[in-house]
Every structure is written in structure tokens, then in C-alpha cells.
């Protein structure tokens, strides 16, 4: 009797306290994210260039989206970016963090330099790589000619442009995962390593058998971060290629942006944004379910 009331009181106090703690964050999200989303869903029922009168089209935009080859191509490109980003950034990030964790303070200089790409804005990176990859005067062409090769056209070639973008994105974001894993490493207590070493484990064994399994939660959340980030990626691709040529590097976000800000089809752009939101949420939910199930 007393116990149930205690449990009840405890439950109630948790409910009150969690409301207090969550309120500010949810309020901000409601005003600045949810309201605009609702607004977007409403706008998706119209055809509207921002100047002339809105024309009600019902689900017309949604129908168009389902048949829009470019949108689905962009979605496919996003999936490619997602998979390759994870495959490239995670191992390098872990490797760099492992090295930094091993050498400790001696690695400070390396850490600062390795972190620089993350500090640069996508606009800056976009400009720099635009010149570096110029087919005539660029760095890569220069290297190729040094070894007797011809000009290398990476950004104008529909077959190579997406991969090129992925490499640059990876270059930009690997440092973040490096720091993320480093923070994860610092969460492992020294005792664990000492204990493993006393048991006669080599560095390699320690890494594969002890550290990596313990880093699992960090890796899992890093994968989700990278996934969501890749699915809504925009900045660098927009600065560098605007999704071109021939939509070869088109991503959902760049396509939506050009619909809204170049074609001025606000209604359709809203529809694309909503579609994008639904797709990303679905993928994120499914992945999280899968990752959590493995844990159990």
C-alpha cells in the first residue's frame, strides 16, 4: 500500500520534473521548426511563384513528386552519399582518434591541424575546391600532367562529380567524428586499458577486443548523425556544382532549393521538403530500431 503510493509519488515527481526540463527545448522547436513545417504542408497544396495569386492544386504537387525522376535520382544520390560517407568517415575518424588517444598530449599539434577542415565554412571549401579541381588550371590536372597524364575533369563529368563531392564532404566532416570518437575514448576509463595490458593484450588486441566494443554506443550515434547529415546535405554541393551537371550531383536539398529559389515554385518546393522530411524520418526511425534491436 505504502509502496504503491511511494511509487506513484515518484512517478508524479518525475512527470513534473521532466516537463520542467523539457519545456524550453520543446517550445523553441515548436515555434521555429514545427510551425514552419505545418506551414509547408499547407503550402504544398498550392501552386505559387511567390508573386502571383496562389492556385489550389490539392495533391497535384504530391503526384508530380511521385513521378519526378529528378527527385528520386536525388534521393538515390543521397543514399550513395550516406553509405559512402559512413564507409569513409567512420574508419578514418576512429583511426585518427585512436592514434591521438595513444600519443596523448604529444598529438596536440596534429589534432589542431587535422581539425582545420571542420573549422572552414562550406562556402570557403567550395571556392577552394572549385579552383583546385578546375579541369584546365587545377591542382589535380597539374598533378596528372606532371606524371604525363591529361587534363582531369572531375566536376563537369556526370560520372565522377558525385564521388568527387563525397570525397570533399568526407574531408570536411571526418575531423568532427575524430573529436567525437576521441571524446568517446576519454569515456573509457584508464583502468580498462591497464587491466587489458596486464592480461597481456597487445595494442592491436586491445583495440579490437576491448576498445572497439566499448565504443559501440559512440559509433552507433555517430552513424546516425552521419546518416541524417548526409540525407539532408546541402551546402558544399550547392556551392560547388548546384547539383549539376545533368543532375548528376543533385541531392534532395539542392533540388528543393533550386525549385524554391531559382524556379520560384514555392508550392512544389514545399512538397519536396515535406517528402524529404518524411523519407529521412522513416530511414532514421528504421535504422534506430535496427541498431537498438541488435543491442537487446
Amino acid at each position, binding site marked *: 500500500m505504502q509502496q504503491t503510493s511511494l511509487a506513484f509519488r515518484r512517478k508524479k515527481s*518525475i512527470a513534473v*520534473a*521532466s516537463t520542467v*526540463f*523539457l519545456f*524550453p*527545448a*520543446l517550445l523553441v*522547436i515548436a*515555434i*521555429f*521548426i514545427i*510551425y*514552419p*513545417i505545418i506551414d*509547408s504542408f499547407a*503550402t504544398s497544396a498550392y501552386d505559387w511563384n511567390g508573386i502571383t495569386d496562389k492556385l489550389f492544386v490539392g495533391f497535384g504537387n504530391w503526384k508530380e513528386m511521385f513521378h519526378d525522376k529528378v527527385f528520386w535520382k536525388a534521393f538515390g544520390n543521397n543514399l550513395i552519399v550516406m553509405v559512402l560517407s559512413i564507409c569513409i568517415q567512420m574508419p578514418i575518424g576512429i583511426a585518427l582518434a585512436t592514434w591521438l588517444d595513444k600519443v596523448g*598530449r604529444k598529438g*596536440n599539434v*596534429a589534432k*589542431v591541424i587535422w*581539425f*582545420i*577542415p571542420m573549422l*572552414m*565554412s562550406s*562556402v*570557403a*571549401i567550395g*571556392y*577552394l*575546391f572549385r*579552383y*583546385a579541381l578546375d579541369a584546365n*588550371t*587545377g591542382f589535380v590536372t*597539374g598533378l596528372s600532367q606532371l606524371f604525363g597524364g591529361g587534363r582531369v575533369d572531375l566536376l563537369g563529368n556526370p560520372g565522377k562529380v558525385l564521388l568527387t563531392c563525397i570525397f570533399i564532404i568526407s*574531408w570536411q566532416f571526418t575531423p*568532427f567524428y575524430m*573529436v567525437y570518437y*576521441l*571524446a568517446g575514448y*576519454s569515456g573509457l*576509463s*584508464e583502468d580498462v586499458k591497464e587491466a587489458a595490458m596486464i592480461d597481456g593484450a597487445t595494442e592491436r588486441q586491445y583495440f579490437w577486443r576491448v576498445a572497439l566494443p566499448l565504443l559501440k*554506443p559512440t559509433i552507433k*550515434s555517430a552513424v546516425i*548523425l552521419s546518416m*541524417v547529415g548526409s540525407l*539532408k546535405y*546541402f551546402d558544399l554541393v550547392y556551392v560547388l556544382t548546384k547539383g549539376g551537371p545533368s543532375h548528376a550531383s543533385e541531392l534532395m536539398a539542392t533540388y*528543393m532549393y533550386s525549385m*524554391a529559389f531559382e524556379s520560384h515554385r*514555392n508550392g512544389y*518546393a*514545399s512538397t519536396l*521538403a515535406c517528402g524529404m*522530411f518524411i523519407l529521412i*524520418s522513416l530511414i*532514421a526511425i528504421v535504422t534506430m530500431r535496427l541498431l537498438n534491436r541488435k543491442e537487446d
Partner: protein
Amino acid sequence: MNSKKKFRPSSIIVAVLVVLWFLICLTPLVFLIMSTFKQQFEMMNNGVFALPEGFYLGNYKALFESGRIWRYILNSLVVLVVTLVILLSFSAFASYPLSRWKFRMNKPIHGFIVACMSIPIHITLLPLYLMSVKTGLYDSIWALIGPYVAFNLPISVFILTTFMATIPKELEEAAEIDGCGRYQMFGKVMLPLVKPGLATLVIYDGVNIWNEFSFALTLTQSAANRTLPLAVNEFQGQYTMNTPMILTVLFISILPMIIVFIFGQDKLIKGMMAGAVKG
């Protein structure tokens, strides 16, 4: 380094890789810095990767003589600090119950916030613009705070809940026995323990906010209320742009971040270590 150790081929591979990654990270920055000392025609005629003909300081001079750059820097700083303070406290508040307590709405709310990570910011530009006009915040740096906090919140909560979840339950239980209440527990036990997580957020969100372009472009217009990334605008026209000047602006906007990181990373590591020892 360690001469006592046996020579191993793998350590050479590691050293080569370390140096290689050094070069990969540094090269673009070197080109960026070099370009800031070039005149426009120089860049056109000699190619982007040629060494500058001399130490041409005209870009820096022009930028700082106009005086507006200081205003942009100040605006960016104010926005950064105010946003970070609000953002970090709100996300720490929210992450605490989500990671430590069992209640019915826990998973749905967590899922909801995480789902918000997937929202492309560009679709909110129009509604948020109209909102800022209606509230009279349009064309002031304060219009930026709300959207910046909101769009960095989901990822911050996501990262912080992960961090908080790794902290052992025993610590809290011990504190509870000592008579620590729920709210005290947050301030006295939790916050100190998630310092590494907060440090990661300061970096990640800080860089995002410092470099943010789209909201700043839409929600402010007069030169007095612009942030640093928008300084690029002045040199980008309908058919042409002053590339060395733009790169100078970009370098100047990266510079504070690099300096902060150089001096701040020591603290960052200490924070991480502290978390590690106690955790």
C-alpha cells in the same frame, strides 16, 4: 620516436599516413592564405596555385579600412555567444530526463526531437521570415537567435543524451542517498560529468553558427546588422566576383575559430579527462 621500441614496419606506415593526412588537411588552407595576398588580375593570369608575386596587402587594407568588418565580427560574436548559452542550457535540460528517467513520453519525445534533425532549414525560411517581420525582429541580429537555437537543438540533444546515458547509475544513487534533489542532481552531478559532451557541442554548434549563411541572408538586410559570412556579398556581383577579396573575408572568418581551437583544445581535453576519470 621511441628508440627503445623494436623497429616495426607498421609504425612507418602509421607515420606516413599521419603525415599524409597532415598534408591533406593543410593544403587547402595554405592556398587560401596565399590567395589573400594576390590581386585579382594576378589570380586570373598566373593561375590560382602560383605563388603570389609579392606580399600584396590591398585586400586586407580594403577590408579593414571600410570599417564595416569590425561591425560584422562584433555581430557574429554576439550571436554566437548568446545562441550557445541558450542552446547548451536548453539541450542539457532536455537531455537529462530523456537519458536518465523512465516515463511514458520519454521515447516518443526523444524520437520526435531526433526526427527534427532531418528537417531541411530552407523550407522554414519563408515562414520564419514572415514571423520575424511580424514580431519586429526582422533586420536585427536577434532574429537569428531563435532559428539558430532551434536548428542546433535536435543534434545537441541527441549527442548529449548519448553522453549522459553512459554515466553509471551508481553516482546518482549515491547522491540521492546524500539527500540530493532532482534539480540539484542535475547541476551538481550531471553537468560536471557531461563536460566532454558539452565541449563537443561547443565546437560543432559553434562552427555551424559562426558560418551560418542562409538565415543570416534572409533575416537581416542592413549592413549594420550583418554577420561575418555575409561580408562575402559585397564582392559577389551579377556576373563577376572579386575572388581574392572573398577568400580574404573567408580567411578572416576562419581565423578566430582556429585561434579559439588552438587555445581552447587544452581545456577541451581537460574537460574530457575529467569526465573520464570520474566516469
